[in-house]
C-alpha cells in the first residue's frame, strides 16, 4: 500500500503532524493487512488501559559494541517516540527498559533474566553481537520471553537457538554474503583473496562467500584469517597472491582504520579491485585521513549511508526522526557518523512487534506465544516507513527476514549506490522449522 501524499511541512521540534501520524497508521494497517493477519485492531479501545508495554532493550553501552549501541539507542528512542505519538500499540504506550550488557555473553544472559523476572518486561530486544546472542538466547528460551535480536548473525536461521528468538528486522550475514557473489564475479574479477577476522563472524563470511562465489565460477585464491585484537596488519599482506583480482575484506573492530590505511600503503598505486563490507567502517567518517585509498572501491551496505538522488520519502522521514543528515551523520555533529547499515533493524523490529501485538490482540505476558505465532505468520513486508531499508520477505519457519542488499562505490569520499540486489538473490534453503517446535 503506497501513499502518495506529500511529506508534511516540517513542524516544530518534536512535531508529528496529524497527517504524518495518519500516514503512519495507514501504512501500519497496510503491513498488517499485507501480512495476512487479523486486520483492524488499531486504535480500538479493547481494554483501554494506559498500562505501558514494557520492552526490555538489551544494548551494548560499553565494551567493543559500544559504538553501535549508541546508535541503536538513538534509533530505538526515535521509533518508540513515533509509535507512541501515533497511539502506541493497542492504545498502550511503549516503555523501553534499557540495560547495558557490556557486549558480554554472561552479562547478556543476566540482563535477559532481569528483563523477565525483575522488570517484568513483555519482551526483550536489541542485541547485536553474535556471541552475546548465543549467550543470551538460551535464557530467553528458558524464561519463555520473546527475544527479538537485531544482530545480522546467521544464528537464528541456523536452528541453533530456540522458538522464542527471532530476527525479523535485519537480514543475516549468510544472505548478505551470498548476494554479493554474482556482482563481484560479473564486475570485479574471478580471483579473490579474502581477509577476515579469525572468529565466528569472519568464518561465516569465509564459508558462505566461498561456496557462493565458486558457484559463480570464481576461485578463492587465498584466505587470510587475522587473529582478533590484532592492531597492525601490514605483516599479513605479503600473503596476498600476486594474481589477485579482487580483495574481499570484512575486518571489524577498532583497528579497522589501521587496516584500510595499511592496505593502501601496502599496494601504493597498483591496487586490485577491492570489495569490503561497511561493517568495517560503521560510525567512521569516509573522509577520514588515510581512507583516500578507498576511492573507487566497493562496499556492501545494509542501508545506503548517503542519501541517493532517488531518495524515498521513507528514507527522508526515517533520517529526520533518528537525527541523521544526508551523509548519515548526526545532525548536531557532522563528525558523529552513524551505524547506518545496522540501526534500521531496531526501527523495523519495533514496528514488527507492534504489528504482531496488534494482530494477536496482545494483552500481557500470557499472550507471548500468540505474539510469536503472529510474527511467524508474517511474510511480505513492503517498502514503507515501517521498513525504510526496503521491502522484506520474512520466513516464519526460520524466524529470519530477507531483504534487498546494496552495493555502493566510493566516489569522491562518499558512497554512491551502484547496485541493488533482488530479494531472490539473497535466499537460501531453510535449515530449521521453529514452528514445529513446542513452546
Amino acid at each position: 500500500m503506497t501513499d502518495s501524499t506529500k511529506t508534511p511541512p516540517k513542524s516544530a521540534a518534536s512535531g508529528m503532524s496529524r497527517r504524518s501520524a495518519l500516514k503512519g497508521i495507514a501504512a501500519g494497517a497496510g503491513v498488517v493487512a499485507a501480512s495476512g493477519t487479523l486486520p483492524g485492531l488499531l486504535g480500538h479501545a479493547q481494554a483501554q488501559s494506559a498500562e505501558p508495554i514494557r520492552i526490555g532493550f538489551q544494548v551494548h553501552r560499553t565494551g567493543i559494541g559500544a559504538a553501535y549501541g549508541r546508535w541503536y539507542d538513538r534509533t530505538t528512542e526515535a521509533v518508540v517516540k513515533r509509535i507512541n505519538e501515533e497511539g502506541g500499540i493497542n492504545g498502550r504506550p511503549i516503555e523501553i527498559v534499557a540495560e547495558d550488557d557490556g557486549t558480554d555473553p554472561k552479562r547478556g544472559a543476566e540482563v535477559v533474566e532481569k528483563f523477565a523476572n525483575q522488570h517484568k518486561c513483555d519482551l526483550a530486544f536489541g542485541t547485536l553481537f553474535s556471541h552475546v546472542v548465543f549467550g543470551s538466547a538460551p535464557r530467553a528460551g528458558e524464561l519463555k520471553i520473546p527475544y527479538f535480536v537485531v544482530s545480522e548473525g546467521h544464528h537464528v536461521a541456523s536452528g541453533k537457538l530456540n522458538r522464542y528468538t527471532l530476527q525479523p528486522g535485519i537480514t543475516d550475514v549468510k544472505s548478505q554474503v551470498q548476494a554479493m557473489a554474482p556482482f563481484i564475479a560479473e564486475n570485479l574479477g574471478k580471483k579473490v583473496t579474502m581477509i577476515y577476522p579469525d572468529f565466528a563472524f569472519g568464518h561465516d563470511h569465509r564459508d558462505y562467500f566461498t561456496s557462493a562465489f565458486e558457484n559463480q565460477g570464481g576461485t578463492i585464491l587465498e584466505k587470510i584469517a587475522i587473529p582478533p585484537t590484532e592492531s597492525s596488519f601490514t605483516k599479513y599482506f605479503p600473503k596476498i597472491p600476486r594474481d589477485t583480482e579482487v580483495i574481499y575484506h570484512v575486518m571489524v573492530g577498532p583497528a579497522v582504520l589501521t587496516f584500510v590505511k595499511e592496505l593502501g600503503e601496502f599496494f601504493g598505486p597498483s591496487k586490485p579491485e577491492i570489495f569490503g563490507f561497511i561493517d568495517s567502517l560503521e560510525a567512521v567518517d569516509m573522509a577520514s585521513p588515510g581512507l583516500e585509498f578507498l576511492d573507487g572501491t566497493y562496499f556492501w551496505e545494509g542501508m545506503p549511508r548517503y542519501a541517493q538522488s532517488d531518495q524515498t520519502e521513507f528514507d527522508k522521514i526515517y533520517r529526520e526522526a533518528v537525527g541523521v543528515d544526508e551523509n548519515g551523520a548526526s545532525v548536531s555533529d557532522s563528525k558523529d557518523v552513524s551505524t547506518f547499515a545496522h540501526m534500521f533493524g531496531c526501527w523495523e523490529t519495533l514496528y514488527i512487534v507492534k504489528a504482531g501485538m496488534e494482530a494477536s490482540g496482545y494483552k500481557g505476558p500470557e499472550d507471548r506465544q500468540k505474539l510469536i505465532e503472529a510474527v511467524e505468520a508474517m511474510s511480505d513486508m513492503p517498502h514503507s516507513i515501517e521498513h525504510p531499508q526496503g521491502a522484506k520477505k520474512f520466513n516464519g519457519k526460520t524466524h529470519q527476514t530477507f531483504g534487498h542488499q546494496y552495493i555502493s562505490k566510493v566516489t569522491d569520499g562518499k558512497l554512491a549506490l551502484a547496485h541493488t540486489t533482488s530479494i531472490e538473490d539473497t535466499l537460501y534453503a531453510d535449515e530449521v522449522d521453529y514452528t514445529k517446535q513446542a513452546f
Partner: protein
Amino acid sequence: MEFGPYLFFASLEGAITAAVLALTAVGLSIVFGIMRVVNVAHGEFYMLGAVIAWWITSMISAHPALGFVAALIIAPITVGLLAIVCDYLVLRRINYDPERTIVATIGLLYVLQQTTLMTFGPEPRPVEAPFNKRIALPWFEFKEGGFALTWPWGLSTTTYKLAVIAAAVFILLLLWLVMSRTRVGLIMRATQLDSEMAQAHGIPVNKVYALVFGLGAGLAALGAVLVVPIQQAHYLMGGDPLLLSFIVVIIGGLGSVAGTIVAAVLIGMSDGIISVFFTPTLAKIIATLLVAFVLVFRPQGLFGKPEL
C-alpha cells in the same frame, strides 16, 4: 611475496612494534623496578596519551605536524601529572603494598576507561600523521653479472613508520643518559637498589616514587602518541599494550631496563617474523607459548638476577 623480501618486510614491521613496545614497557619497567609495584592501569595511561593527542590535534587544525608536535609534548606531561596525582591520592596511602596496589590499580583502570568512554566516546578516532609518504623498498637479487636492485610488489614502508623507530631509539638513548649520567638518574637507581638506605642518606623516597610513577606513565603516553597516527585512539586500546609490556618486563628481567629493551626487540620482531611462517592465529599461539616457556626455564628473565 618471495621469502627474502617477505622476511625483510616482516622484520621492518616487527621493528616498529618493538619500538613502541620498548617505550611503553620501559615505563612499566621503571615503575616495577624502582617501586616494586604492579601497575595494572599502565595500559590506561597509554590510552590516555593517544586520546589526549587526538584532542590536541583536533583543536590545532592548522597543519597536522604542528598539532602532532604539540601533542608529543603536552600529552605525556599531562598523563605523567595525572599519574603523580594518583600516586599521592592512592598508592602512597596503601604504602605500595603489592597486593593492594594491584586491586587499587585495577580500580583505577576501570575509572580511567569508563571516564574516557563517557567523554571521548566509544568509537575509534584517527589522528593524522605529521608526514606520511609511502616508500617502495628495494630488494637485492643475484642476477647474471652481480647484484641487481628490484622493487618487489608490496615491499614498502612509510616515512612516518621509519620516523617512529628513530624517535623511539632517540628517546631511549636520552632515558639511558638521564638514568646513568645525571643526578636524578642516580637517585632513582639508588632508590631501586635499597630504598631504606637511600632514605637514610636523605633521599626523599616518596617524592622519588611519585616522580618515577609519573615518568613511567609519561613514557607509555609518549609511545601511544607516536603510534596513534598508525593506529587510532580508542578507549579500549590499553589492554594489549598492558599485556605485552608485562611480558616484556618479566622476560627482560625485573629491574633491568636494558633487559626490557632487549626483550621488547625480541618480542616485537618475533611477532612479525613468526607470522611469516604460520597462519596468524597459530603464530600468536606459538609466540604466547614461547614466552611462557622462556619463563618456565629461566624464571628470572633474560637479564634478571636469579631469585633465591
